[in-house]
Structure formats: structure tokens, C-alpha cells
């Protein structure tokens, strides 16, 4: 379950030996891309360049990347209010992401949706969703469509543990199990629903809720990208072979506030707890250390990767900052066919 509490282990993740170096480095790149993207988003917000708000994914990168790297481009995901990580992990363009966040016309939603309104048909991303638990139906339906069309696509439904409060999720899981749909419910348990510990809002055990429907369930350490990835490969494969849905419960942590403006947090979670996670359970750092210890990469290579990504991000932000806003007469577009 939580093997990776110790850092620097070599062969603990099942399946990790099967991953070639390129693949491992790609996991790292993807995680770092999300990390640097989100840090930039925070800067834009603090600099009053970004309207509205955003929920940062920092701290949870191993989940989105571990899962999405087990998917094909034509597999589906549905995302959440904390969705930038999922979108990027599934292959979204940095330019269009930043443009959307800044309300600019080249954005994914033509700058008319913002942080929680990003969908990307080209990468199978059925969309972020500002309604907690709101995409349980969409993901399950996408899986049903895949099954009925006889394609071997798989759908992944990402949600935070807060969504466990929504009845829709259970109605959908029941159907998915009855009809053996190729859907994987990925519950990212970052310990808090907004400003309340999940223990105060969630009775019983999380995994038991999916098990009650006869859904194959696993609870894992969501900070260990190799573990998340290996498990996801197995579950995706299983779903593709028609073996039905799965529920992957990942324990993780958001390093920042609930949203960019949530700065004073001590009344709902202790500074010490935050520091512990940041210093000992940072998925990006843990993986960087592992890559070095196992001689997959040296510090120089990791620096080079970081510089490349930082440059790309700078370019994308500049692109978005210089892009035009949508025209006023677009206001009625895309409401009907």
C-alpha cells in the first residue's frame, strides 16, 4: 500500500522493471511540466493577471501522470475542478491552456470558460468540471459507448474524495459494475474537501464504497508515480479485455490551498502536516531522487529537462498574454448546433 514512504527504493513498484528508461524519463517530464505550469498559474494569479480562480494540482502530479501514461491517446478521461494536471497529463497544449486561463480567444473554450472549463477532443479529454462529482455520468457513459461500439477504449473518471458525497457516483458505479463497463474511477484522496478533513465528511472506508458494487478496488500511495503507473497499466488492460470497472483510490495531498486565494490554512490543517508532505512525500522530488539513485538520470540531465520545460512554459505564457480576447459577438456561439 504505502511502500514508497521510504525513498530511494529500487525495485519496489510492481512492473517498474518493464519500464524502459525513456518511459521513466517521460513520466518525470510530464510531472514536472504540471508542477511548473501550476507554479506559473499561481504567479499569474498573484500578479492579478488571471481572472477568477484556479485550483492548483501541485502535490498530486503522480496520480494524473501515472494514470494517463497508461492510456492511449484515444482513451477518455473526465477531469475535475482541479483539472490542469489531468489535462496536461493527457496531452493538452500549454498555449491553449494558458490562453483559456487568461480568458483569451485561442484558449480551449475560446476564453469563455476558464480554469474549470477545459475540454480537449484531440486527446480524449471530455472535460474539466466545476461540479464536484459532475463527470461520473459522462465517464461511465463514455465507457458504455466504447463497449457498445466495440472499440477497446477505456474511460477514466478522476475525482477528489469530496465527490464521494454525491449520490450520482454510486448510481453510476452500480451500472458500470452491472454492465461490466471499461471505466476506471480514480479517487484522488488529498485528505480535504475544500476546508474540511475528509474524515469528518466520509463514513466508513473509501474503498468499501466501490467494493459494495463488486468493483475491483485498490488503495495505493498516490505519491509514487511508478506505483500508480504500474497499477493503472494493469487496471486499464483489465478493462480493455472486458473485465469491467475498477476503482483506484490514491492517497495524496495538495500542497497549496484549496484554490489560489486560500493562503491562511492553519485553522483546518496544520503547518507541520503540510511541511511533512512537502519535504518527505513530494512526488516530483521522490521520483527525481529515484532516477538518480538508480542511475537512470544524473543531476545534469534533470536540470536540462527542467530548463527545457521552463522555457516552453515561458513561451506559452507569453503567447497567452499577447493573445486577443474573444470578440463580443461571440457571446451567443456554441449554445446550439
Amino acid at each position, binding site marked *: 500500500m504505502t511502500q514508497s514512504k521510504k525513498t530511494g527504493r529500487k525495485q519496489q513498484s510492481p512492473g517498474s522493471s518493464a519500464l524502459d528508461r525513456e518511459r521513466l524519463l517521460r513520466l518525470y517530464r510530464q510531472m514536472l511540466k504540471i508542477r511548473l505550469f501550476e507554479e506559473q498559474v499561481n504567479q499569474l494569479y498573484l500578479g492579478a493577471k488571471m481572472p477568477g480562480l484556479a485550483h492548483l494540482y501541485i502535490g498530486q502530479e503522480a496520480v494524473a501522470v501515472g494514470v494517463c501514461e497508461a492510456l492511449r491517446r484515444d482513451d477518455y478521461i473526465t477531469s475535475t475542478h482541479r483539472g490542469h494536471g489531468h489535462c496536461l497529463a493527457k496531452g493538452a497544449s500549454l498555449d491553449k491552456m494558458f490562453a483559456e486561463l487568461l480568458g483569451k480567444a485561442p484558449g480551449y473554450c475560446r476564453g469563455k470558460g*476558464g480554469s474549470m472549463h477545459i475540454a480537449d477532443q484531440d486527446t480524449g479529454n471530455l472535460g474539466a468540471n466545476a461540479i464536484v462529482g459532475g463527470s461520473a455520468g459522462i465517464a461511465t457513459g463514455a465507457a458504455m459507448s466504447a463497449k457498445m461500439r466495440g472499440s477497446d477504449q477505456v474511460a477514466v473518471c478522476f475525482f477528489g474524495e469530496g465527490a464521494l458525497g454525491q449520490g450520482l457516483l454510486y448510481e453510476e458505479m452500480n451500472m458500470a459494475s452491472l454492465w461490466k463497463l471499461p471505466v476506471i474511477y480514480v479517487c484522488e484522496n488529498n485528505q480535504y474537501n475544500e476546508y474540511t478533513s475528509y474524515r469528518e465528511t466520509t463514513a466508513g472506508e473509501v474503498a468499501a464504497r466501490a467494493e459494495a458494487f463488486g468493483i475491483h478496488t485498490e488503495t495505493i500511495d498516490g505519491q509514487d508515480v511508478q506505483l500508480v503507473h504500474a497499477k493503472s497499466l494493469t487496471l486499464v488492460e483489465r478493462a480493455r479485455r472486458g473485465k469491467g470497472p475498477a476503482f483506484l483510490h490514491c492517497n495524496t495531498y495538495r500542497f497549496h490551498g484549496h484554490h489560489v486565494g486560500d493562503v491562511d490554512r492553519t485553522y*483546518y490543517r496544520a503547518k507541520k502536516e503540510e511541511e511533512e508532505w512537502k519535504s518527505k512525500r513530494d512526488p516530483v522530488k521522490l521520483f527525481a531522487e529515484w532516477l538518480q539513485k538508480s542511475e537512470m538520470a544524473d543531476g545534469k540531465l534533470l536540470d536540462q529537462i527542467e530548463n527545457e520545460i521552463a522555457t516552453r512554459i515561458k513561451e506559452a505564457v507569453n503567447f497567452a498574454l499577447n493573445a486577443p480576447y474573444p470578440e463580443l459577438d461571440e*457571446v451567443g456561439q456554441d449554445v446550439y448546433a
Partner: protein
Amino acid sequence: MAKRTMIEAINLALKQEMEKDPRALILGEDVGKNGGVFRATQGLFDIFGETRVVDTPLSESAIIGVAIGMAVYGLRPIAEIQFEGFIYASMEQLASHAGRIRTRSRGRYHCPIVVRLPYGGGIRAPEHHSDSNEAYFVHTPGIKVVIPSTPYEAKGLLIAAIRDPDPVIFMEPKKLYRSLREEVPEEEYLIPLGQSRIVIEGTDITLITWGAMLQPTLQAATLMEKRGINPEIIDLRTLSPLDMQTVIESVEKTHKAVIVHEAPASCGVGAEVIARINEKALVHLEAPVARVAGFDTVMPLPKLEKYYLPNAERVAEAVDRVLNF
């Protein structure tokens, strides 16, 4: 007398009603320790404790569901839904149950819940955080719909809503939570539900509005007054039940009317107001009643939000159209 914001006025009303009525309790997501996403319930958890200021799971439909049960059996629950866009999962509870319990029991049971619902745009919030969805509730029999337009109004209307024997959706214009201060007495006062108010008396045209749209309507009136036009402005306050008498009397005097609301025009509450004016006062009208409203689209955020929301210029244009008919 102290000048207060709307959020402070709401907080005060909640506190005073909770002190006065031991049956009153608050429930919702993050309303307790956190004090609510807009801080409407700030400090109340410390005063009344966790049994009367209840942090719930993230379950809108169950929040309204248990509120109904508590209300039917002797309590006065005040539920908070964080944003108007999150209420749809509870619509089943509201439409199928809350609004029908009185009729279903032929008047023996009643369901005195209050649902506090921050609504509306103008704060550059994201999708599902900016809508003006009052018409759904107005269309639901058995439910009252109240929308305050200033801090003073918010306190008096909220106290009336809490004491009302029927379910009340109390929609709070989040744009006005902190952008406006006015004198709000510490002492208790009530503004009865079902009575609209004349904000400015005038003779030339009737402007009918509610909630956050009162501000641009007042600004439009200033523009008009400079040109020698004296509008009468009516704040409906309660959209269900709708006090048409004030409106009809005004229209009989001015012979012209414009309705201003931020919800999409189609089937917005403005349409109902027009229908009722036509039923009662058609012969007094000198021009068709005009509407200034949001567009029939999903709220376009963030840059087009300003364009979407009615403003003083759009109201003034509509007034000109009606006057020059």
C-alpha cells in the same frame, strides 16, 4: 447606527434569529469551522456549536433532503448552498418534496426551510459560479423566492424568510456582498415577504428590477434625470409570491415600463411580469414593455461577463426605445 455590508447584515440576521429561536440551525458545506465560502456564517460555530452550525458532507441533495425532514418535524433549518450552480442536484428535493409537503398533507405539515443561495455574476468567477437561476424556483409551486438588493433589505428579508412557514429560496447577489455599505440597525426588524418597494418615485416610466440589478438601474436613472426624465424604480424583493399591485399602480401612472434582470431573457421572471402587466393594465400602456436581460447563453466568462450583464447604458437605451415608441 452601523454601516454594514450585505454579508455582515446576513451574518447578523442569522445570529439574532439563532439566539432568539432555539429551533433554528444552519447546515451546509464548510459553514462551521470555516465560516462559509463567503463568510456569511463566520463566528456562528463558536457561538452556537456544532449541533446548530453543522458542517455537512459534499452532498447538496442530502443537505436539502435532511433540511426538509427537520423542518417538517419541528426545526427551522437554514441551509447554505455555496453557489447557485451547485443546487441542481437538490432540485429533486425542492421541487418534488419541499414545495409539495403542504399540499400533499392537505395543510397539516409545513416545511419552513430557508435555502441561502449566493447567485449571479459580476465577480469574474468561473463557470457554474455566476448564474442567475431564480426562474427555476419561481416556476416551482410551493416555494417562495426572495432576493434582497441592499444590506438593509437583506437583514429584514432574511429574518422574515426564517420565520416564514413555507420553504424559501433566499438568493443573495454575491456581487453586492461587499461592494456596498449602508446603515443596518442592530435591532430586529422585518420586511414582509410578498411586498415590493418603490425605490425612487417618478412619473415618466417604471423600471422594475431586483437583486444586483438595482444598482445599474439606479445609475441609469441618474443618466435619465440629467435629461429631464423621471423614472420610478421598483425593487420586487420577492419574486414568488409576486406583488403586482405596486407594479400595476405604477404602470397606470407612467404608462411605460422596462424590466431589468441578469438572467437569460427567455422565460426569465421578466416575462411573467410582462404577462401580468398585460392582463391587468394593457390599456394603460403607451408602448410595449421592454426587457434588459442576460443573453440566452451560458454565462461567458470572464472577459465577456461585463458585456453579458445589463448595465446602465443598456437600461438607458431601452428607456429611450420605449419613450420614443
